Structure formats: structure tokens, C-alpha cells
């Protein structure tokens, strides 16, 4: 069969196509069709010719098969050192074979590539830190995802995620009108407790333009309210864009290169339109990587930077605590054993390891913060990164992989895990659900709101009169 009705080489570009794939619950028909999806060898050869340059070819050739990457991979460790989970083995037997055969591979091989690229690698890039040659398997797996996507071999949820971005410019079905209405609703719901709270939309020249993860308006709007409350306490001059508010990129996870560019361009257009002094993204790892670290290159910005400085939430929060814009009540600091999850996407991939520790120094009672080991740029992935949390086909593989994070957390003795990344937060929640180790998990925002000193003029009237 050349191409399926649902599983095919064409990205989802219309609401009708999106609805059809969504209606195939769990992707049953989709994966059945994939078994018969032919590889378009000519197209694959052209893609390789156009995109596979010397770096990847050199990396594959120079790998000495030394195996030093093996112990760096949480999948290898969690699977009892199964040699087929060694990063170099995983990439050589998938992408390596495609290149060696110049695209002359069959359907079974492409399905193997898909299962490896999404089910046995989260593109956490940890292995690259341990390769004596500096070969980055994470980068190569991201590239392999792109090849798979272009041929239609992409997990069902990732096909949907890419389609959502293409149709809604957001990873979920949230329109600009839905987004603005949710912001207004959150302001309305907070007025009793936070009189005067605002979420200014499309304000030009603000000090901060704030961007979020689509799951916030769709499923967790409290996150938006919490961000507004903390800006309110800090007295920031901020705004959100009505269009270009979605910072995440399931297109990146899906390997949809064209979609990646479209999504980031939407955000950068909002920056050009509203001319903020800087942009600030929510507590999300891949949103930062997709829009701040890699995004500028996708849209062809020569300096490799967003149009104005674009910082992560932890950078703003550390700054707000450091400068006293937000003051913490010492009596309300965290007094239970607590640890911190380093997000691969902005720690290993963007060096933000110290600001999170600085935040801990303000909000945790001395003696209660315990580092995981290893940590910072050597920390292990939460187990659900790279889109893996959202892919049902690999659920058991993910749950096995999460044992490494589970054991890291257990070793700290912590009862609370702070996870300033949506993906990490989900993985740690799911880890607790699966393994029941007796922990709680949290973003930073709700914790800070509970312990911040509220200036008198921001308190509700009744409280002032008391």
C-alpha cells in the first residue's frame, strides 16, 4: 500500500485531517496502516542529500564503538545494561543504516527507526557529554526523527501534535480567542484575593512579554493565574501576546522541521509586533529549547538569537528574588527534605544550572535541600522527555526507564521534588503513580506564592481594614 488514509507522508494541515486522526483512538488504524506504508526511497535520498551534511556523517564514521556512552544512558541502566540500549548501537543500527544504504531501506527498518528514536531516546543529550569524541547522539536522534517524519513513520500522538501546531499554532486546540478569554477568566477568578490583578494583552513596549505552554490554557489555567500573581507582586510591566503566545514545540519532538519554523516564527512575529524589552517563558524545558536555543536557527536568524533577550522563568525568578522584587517570608520557607529536577532542555542544553540553585537558597530552609546525584548538566532525564510522556505505544518502556529517576529521588530522601519543567513535572507525577515512593512534586510558582511577602497595597481591602 503506498500511503494510508491516516498514516502517510503528508503532514496534517487542516482541521478535518486532524479530526480524522484524533478519531482513531490510540492510533489503531494509524499503526496498522504504517505496517504497509512504503518507504519513498527517492524522496529519502533527496532529503539525505539536502540535509545530511558532514557533521553527522563524520560522527557516524568516527565512532570507535568504545562504549563509553553506555552508562550515560538511563534506558541502558534501567534495562539491566541491555547492549541494544547503548546509545552508539541505537544510532548506528538506525540512522547509520539509512545513510550506509543511501536510503534504500524498507518499512520494517523505518518502524524500527521510529521505535528507537521516540521509544528508546528522549534526545536528552546526556550521552554526548561522555563521548570522548564529543559525538552527540541526541542531535542525531533528532535528525533521525526528522527523516522518519518526512516518510510518515511518526508516533500517532506526535503526528497529532505536529498537526495541532500547523492548524492552531499551538500544540493543543486553543485559538487566540480561547487564549485571551482564559486570561480574562483567570483575572476575574482572582479578583477577590488579588484586587487589581491584570493580564495585559498586546501591550506594546512592555518590559516583559510572557509566553506559555498550550496545556496551561487548555488544562491547567491556574499556571497562568500564578504567573500573573507573581508579576503583580513583583510590580512588573508585562504583557502577553494575543497571537504567538504558545512557546512549546511538539513539532520539534515530532521531527516536523517545517512546522518547527512556522511555530517559532509566530512567536518571533509577536516579539517584532509588540517590541518588548525582553521575553520570558514559562516553567517549561522544551519550550525554551525549541524557541530560544534552537528556534532562532530554524527561522534563519544569522546571530542564532531571538529578536530580543528571551529568558527562562527560573532566570526571571532568581533575578526577582535577588533584587528584592519578590521577598520570601523566612518562616514560610520549605522545611521538608526537598530536591530539584534539572531539566535537560535548559540545564544541559542551555547552562541554567546555577540560577535554580540560587532560587533554592531563598526558598528552602538551610539544611533541607538535597541534590540528586548526579546533577546539573549531568543529571538524568526525568524519563519522559522528548515527547515520550505523551506516546502510549512506548508507555511500558518509559515506565521502565523512569526507574533511574525514581532511584535518584529515593536516594535523596526528599519528600518534595521541585520540577520547573512541565515535562519533568508530568514524569515525576507519573513516576509516583506507578512506583508509589511517597513524594510530592511541584512547579516553582505555587510554592513562591505561598511564601512571598505580600506588599500591603496589594492585599484585599477587608484585610487592610482589620
Amino acid at each position, binding site marked *: 500500500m503506498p500511503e494510508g488514509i491516516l498514516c502517510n507522508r503528508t503532514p496534517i494541515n487542516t482541521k478535518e485531517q486532524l479530526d480524522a486522526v484524533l478519531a482513531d483512538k490510540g492510533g489503531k488504524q494509524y499503526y496498522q496502516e504504517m505496517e504497509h506504508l512504503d518507504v519513498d526511497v527517492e524522496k529519502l535520498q533527496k532529503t539525505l542529500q539536502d540535509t545530511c551534511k558532514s557533521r553527522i556523517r563524520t560522527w557516524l564514521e568516527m565512532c570507535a564503538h568504545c562504549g563509553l556512552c553506555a552508562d550515560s544512558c538511563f534506558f541502558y541502566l534501567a534495562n539491566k545494561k541491555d547492549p541494544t540500549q547503548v546509545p552508539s548501537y541505537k544510532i548506528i543500527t538506525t540512522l547509520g543504516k539509512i545513510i550506509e544504504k543511501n536510503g534504500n531501506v524498507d518499512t520494517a527498518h523505518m518502524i524500527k527507526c521510529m521505535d528507537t528514536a521516540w521509544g528508546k531516546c528522549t534526545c536528552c543529550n546526556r550521552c554526548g557529554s561522555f563521548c570522548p569524541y564529543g559525538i552527540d547522539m541526541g542531535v542525531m536522534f533528532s535528525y533521525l526523527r526528522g527523516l522518519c517524519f518526512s516518510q510518515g513513520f511518526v508516533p500517532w500522538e506526535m503526528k497529532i501534535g505536529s498537526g495541532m501546531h500547523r492548524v492552531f499554532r499551538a500544540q493543543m486546540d486553543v485559538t487566540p480567542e480561547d487564549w485571551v478569554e482564559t486570561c480574562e477568566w483567570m483575572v476575574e477568578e482572582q479578583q477577590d484575593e488579588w484586587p487589581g490583578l491584570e493580564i495585559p494583552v498586546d501591550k506594546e513596549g512592555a518590559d516583559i512579554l510572557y509566553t506559555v505552554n498550550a496545556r496551561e490554557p487548555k488544562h491547567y489555567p491556574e499556571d497562568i493565574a500564578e504567573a500573573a500573581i507573581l508579576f503583580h507582586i513583583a510590580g512588573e510591566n508585562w504583557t502577553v501576546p494575543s497571537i504567538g503566545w504558545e512557546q512549546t514545540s511538539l513539532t520539534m519532538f515530532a521531527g516536523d522541521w517545517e512546522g518547527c519554523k512556522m511555530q517559532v516564527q509566530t512567536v518571533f512575529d509577536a516579539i517584532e509586533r509588540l517590541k518588548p524589552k525582553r521575553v520570558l517563558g514559562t516553567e517549561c524545558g522544551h519550550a525554551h529549547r525549541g524557541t530560544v536555543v534552537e528556534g532562532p536557527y530554524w527561522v534563519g536568524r544569522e546571530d542564532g538569537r531571538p529578536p530580543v533577550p528571551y529568558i527562562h522563568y527560573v532566570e526571571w525568578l532568581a533575578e526577582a528574588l535577588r533584587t528584592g522584587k519578590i521577598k520570601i517570608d523566612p518562616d514560610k520557607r520549605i522545611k521538608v527534605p526537598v530536591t530539584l529536577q534539572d531539566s535537560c532542555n535548559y540545564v544541559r542544553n542551555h547552562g541554567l544550572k546555577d540560577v535554580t540553585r540560587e532560587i533554592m537558597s531563598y526558598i528552602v530552609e538551610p539544611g533541607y535541600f538535597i541534590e540528586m546525584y548526579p546533577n546539573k548538566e549531568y543529571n538524568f532525564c526525568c524519563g519522559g522527555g522528548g515527547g515520550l510522556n505523551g506516546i502510549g505505544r512506548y*508507555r511500558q518502556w518509559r515506565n521502565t526507564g523512569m526507574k533511574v529517576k525514581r532511584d535518584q529521588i529515593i536516594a535523596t530522601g526528599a519528600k518534595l521534588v521541585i520540577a520547573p519543567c512541565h515535562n519533568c513535572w508530568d514524569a515525576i507525577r507519573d513516576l509516583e503513580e506507578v512506583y508509589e515512593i511517597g513524594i510530592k512534586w511541584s512547579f516553582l510558582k505555587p510554592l513562591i506564592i505561598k511564601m512571598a511577602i505580600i506588599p500591603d497595597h496589594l492585599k484585599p481591602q477587608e484585610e487592610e481594614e482589620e
Partner: protein
Amino acid sequence: MATVEYKGKTFQVDEDGFLENLDQWCQEWVDYVKESEGIKELNDDHWKVINMLQDYYKKNGIAPMVRILSKVTGFKLKYIYELFPSGPGKGACKMAGLAKPTGCV
């Protein structure tokens, strides 16, 4: 395919324990999720949420935004969390028999 046995009924569920098919949804499923979510008793407001989620899902094939849920039921977000502590996108959708929402959830 995973199954859940509860009070003599067998349910087919996805990898995350959400019902495979809304047609299988029944009182026993609600009781099962209630127990696993640690909800003591269901009141009329729980049912208002469940009914709204199902209506929307049957019409649109996807779970609604929380804003729409709040608008239709008239419930504030805080109250929705009191009804379903694991959240509208997780516990409430699961109890109502919806598929697990896709994306970063």
C-alpha cells in the same frame, strides 16, 4: 490491550488507564475511578462535570478547555479541583470515560 476488572465488569483501557471506548462507560467505571482517585462521594456537581465532558467529547472528539467546562457548568476553577483533585484534564476526563488528552499533559 490492558483490561481493568471491577465489580464483575471488564473494561478495556489504554496505557494510561483511560477507557478505550466511551461505549463501555457505566456506573461501575465511575465507581472504579472514584476509588482510584480517592474521591469519597459523588454529588450532583461531579455529575454536571461528567455530563458536560461527555457531551462535548461526543460532539468534538476531544476534551474541552477548562474555560469551556467552567463556563458551561458555572463552576470556578478552584471548585473543579475540589471535585476532581487530580485535575479536570486527568481525573475528570478519566471518570467521564474520555480518551487521554493528547499532547504535553
